[in-house]
């Protein structure tokens, strides 16, 4: 039991003190890792955006300004924390934590390395591997919404209220597309456990990159997952919830000091967690080619290489988010809803159907070259019919004279 799970969190069965200590150690490491990652990500974001915008970016605190985030955090601790008179004080205080906790918890089921041996115990490099893994992720991203919503509502102020209304609508509608896009992966792998999904995408040869990893097998779902995840994390171009130019700060307009910093932390942590989930579900998690000239069971290939591959993929995705932030204008509220309801949800439904056909065809030994194109063709026809039923809104673009 304790081998299947990273360790049984309920401490049932045959568990000695070593296992408990390993779990505690892993918890502390994951917690610290996530905080350091956030710190690093914010610095990375500021540096890369600065580069894209012909600026220098932070360069005073520490080498290359790498401690800038730490300095900001310390500053936030010493700032006054004001609460508006009209605020619901209890909920106002609670909201930041509601927002930050799920972000922490979701990261605990991400496999960041392979199977290693610590003090004679075989264990996976991930904090927990519950059998409901992916459902747990969806759950956590759903709870994270409450933090944002309650913060806006409890502020007792107009701009945050608008922000939280936007947040609830946006997150609810994108949750649907998000969940549906994950289903394709579940159908392919046949398991909900994140470790199981990562193992299903294990690296066997260089072909694994295309044939085993789900980004290519379920390419449509991957694209939808990325779009929905960007919207779920309120990241530009979907950052309407806090749209500075419209709602000043959106739900966190009234927050100051460390409470604001916690929202900030949660937001960036969500970006990291979502990227990590994308890596796990679609990009093979920690799998990748090992260093052949070193022993197969040595420290480098068992410990380091999977971690290296995981973080390399994570960095690539994080760089993508920074790129989005630097280059795109913001969508409008109704356009965001249009995109979510009229495109993403229906396409992800069709993608689930196509995946179903593909998986059944694989299991039943049907001719793949007939079943798959037929399923795709059917999906495109249905999509076309659906689009025809929808009202269209065309704005003419005039010529410059």
């Amino acid at each position, binding site marked *: 039991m304790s081998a299947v799970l990273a360790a049984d969190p309920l401490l049932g069965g045959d568990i000695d003190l070593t296992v408990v200590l390993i779990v505690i150690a892993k918890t502390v490491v994951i917690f610290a890792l996530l905080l350091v990652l956030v710190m690093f990500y914010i610095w990375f974001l500021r540096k890369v955006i600065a580069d*894209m915008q012909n600026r220098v970016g932070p360069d005073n605190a520490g080498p290359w300004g790498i401690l800038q985030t730490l300095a900001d955090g310390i500053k936030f601790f010493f700032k006054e924390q004001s609460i508006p008179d009209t605020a619901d004080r209890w909920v106002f205080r609670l909201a930041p934590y509601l927002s930050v906790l799920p972000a922490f918890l979701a990261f605990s089921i991400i496999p960041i390395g392979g199977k290693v041996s610590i003090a004679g115990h075989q264990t996976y490099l991930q904090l927990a591997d519950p059998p409901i893994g992916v459902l747990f992720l969806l759950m956590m991203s759903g709870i994270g919404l409450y933090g944002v919503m309650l913060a806006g509502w409890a502020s007792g102020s*107009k701009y945050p209220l608008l922000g939280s209304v936007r947040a609830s609508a946006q997150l609810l509608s994108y949750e649907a597309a998000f969940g549906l896009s994950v289903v394709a992966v579940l159908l392919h792998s046949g398991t909900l456990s994140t470790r199981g999904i990562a193992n299903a995408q294990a690296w066997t040869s260089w072909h694994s990159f295309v044939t085993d990893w789900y980004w290519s097998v379920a390419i449509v779902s991957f694209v939808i997952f990325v779009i929905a995840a960007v919207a779920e994390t309120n990241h530009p171009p979907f950052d309407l919830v806090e749209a500075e*130019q419209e709602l000043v700060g959106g739900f966190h307009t009234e927050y100051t000091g460390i409470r604001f910093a916690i929202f900030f932390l949660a937001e960036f942590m969500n970006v990291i967690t979502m990227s990590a989930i994308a890596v796990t579900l679609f990009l093979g998690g920690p799998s990748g080619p090992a260093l052949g000239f070193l022993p197969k069971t040595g420290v480098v290939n068992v410990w380091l290489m999977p971690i290296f591959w995981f973080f390399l993929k994570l960095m690539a995705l994080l760089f993508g988010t920074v790129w989005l932030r630097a*280059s795109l204008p913001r969508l*409008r509220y109704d356009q965001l809803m249009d995109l979510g309801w009229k495109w993403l949800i229906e396409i992800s439904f069709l993608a689930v159907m196509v995946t179903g056909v593909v998986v059944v065809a694989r299991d039943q030994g049907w001719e793949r070259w007939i079943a798959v194109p037929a399923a795709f063709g059917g999906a495109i026809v249905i999509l076309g019919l659906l689009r025809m039923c929808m009202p269209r809104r065309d*704005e003419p673009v005039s010529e410059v004279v």
Partner: protein
Amino acid sequence: MNDFEHEHVETDADAAVTDAAVAEQVRLERQTDEGEQLLTQHSEIVVTGGPWPEVEGESQTMIINMGPQHPSTHGVLRIMMELDGETVVRAKPIVGYLHTGMEKTGEQLTYVQGCTNVTRMDYASPIANELVFSMAVEQLLDVTVPERATWIRMLLAELSRMASHLLFQASNGMDLGAVSMMLFGWREREEVLRVLEKVTGLRMNHNFVRPGGVAADLPDGWQDTCLDVCDLVERGIGEYDDLLTGNPIWLERMVGVGVITKDEALALAASGPILRSTGFAWDLRKTQPYLAYDQVDFDVIYTENGDCFDRYRIRLYEIAESIKIVRQCVDMMPSGDYRVQNKKITPPPRARIDESMEALIHHFKLFTEGFRVPAGETYAVAESPRGEVGCYMVSDGTGKPIRMHVRGPSFYNLQTMSTMIENRMVADGVAIVSSVDPIMGEVDR
């Protein structure tokens, strides 16, 4: 006597007092934020005038103040919006937060000092304001400025237009969430301001165009500086075009948003890019040429839709037209004096003050009392980046104007905002205010 007045006469004294009290109460309620203000669809009323219609019953709307402290209100504009959900039912701009009485100040300043005052009105394109002020004074004095001075003024006006439109591109991008655009716009604007600084000595508020000509001749090597900045800005606007014009999100946000028709724009006295975006090709540089605009080749950019996207493109392509004019100015700059050689208007050169008693006296008189301007009134206009900027001036024959009024195009353009914003979403409101491109210094004066 119409019906209304007739009724009013017939009411007895007590009722009249009560009515007055009620009216006062209503007026006060209207002045407060939470009062039941301007309630229904009212495009026509905004355009044609008239009282706001009253509504009955409880309203489910929320009144929200955008500004005067808000990230996207371009200074201290306050917009009072009535929201139904996220839809703006009505919006009205409230101005005056930057009012510093500059027009009144203008009456205390001599004609020599006047430029320092007007240049601070439209701080994004100060040359245009100095230009109309100087042109008005010259019309009253009945002097003709030398040709070189005219061309220098035109060169600076176009550089200033470039800087102003680049600022618009920057702030417009920022308002719609394209943050990189803000820095790209500022990058090029900074280069243009550097040229202006090299010529005038200051980045903004130049006080360079003065009655009778300009303050100094162009510095050595100005041709290369101007041509370099033209190339640089040309490359820059190409980048903006690549970055934004074809971007689907950008199109979604801009096309069909903030539409205003030609009739509405004309009725609201809008000018500049807002009027041109409706298909009315009105550019004072072409329609009533001043300076030497009839001798250079450029096009008036106009479009048909009257939406935010059109205004964005008009401003983008106008930068290219300005580049064209600047290049022609470099080619065709005539030689000669940069200001009128009239000792009563222009101060003597610094060296002459040491040699000549008369020069010293003239210098002293000019900078203490200024020069006298014949009695009369006049109105001078120019096309600023934002539209028709005009200066109405009345002189009583002394050294100071008794009335100096500047027609700031932003003030009139801002009126169109209410019409454009109606029944759009809050986010569109931001895009619309941005596309009006108001400079509050000019609105409040």
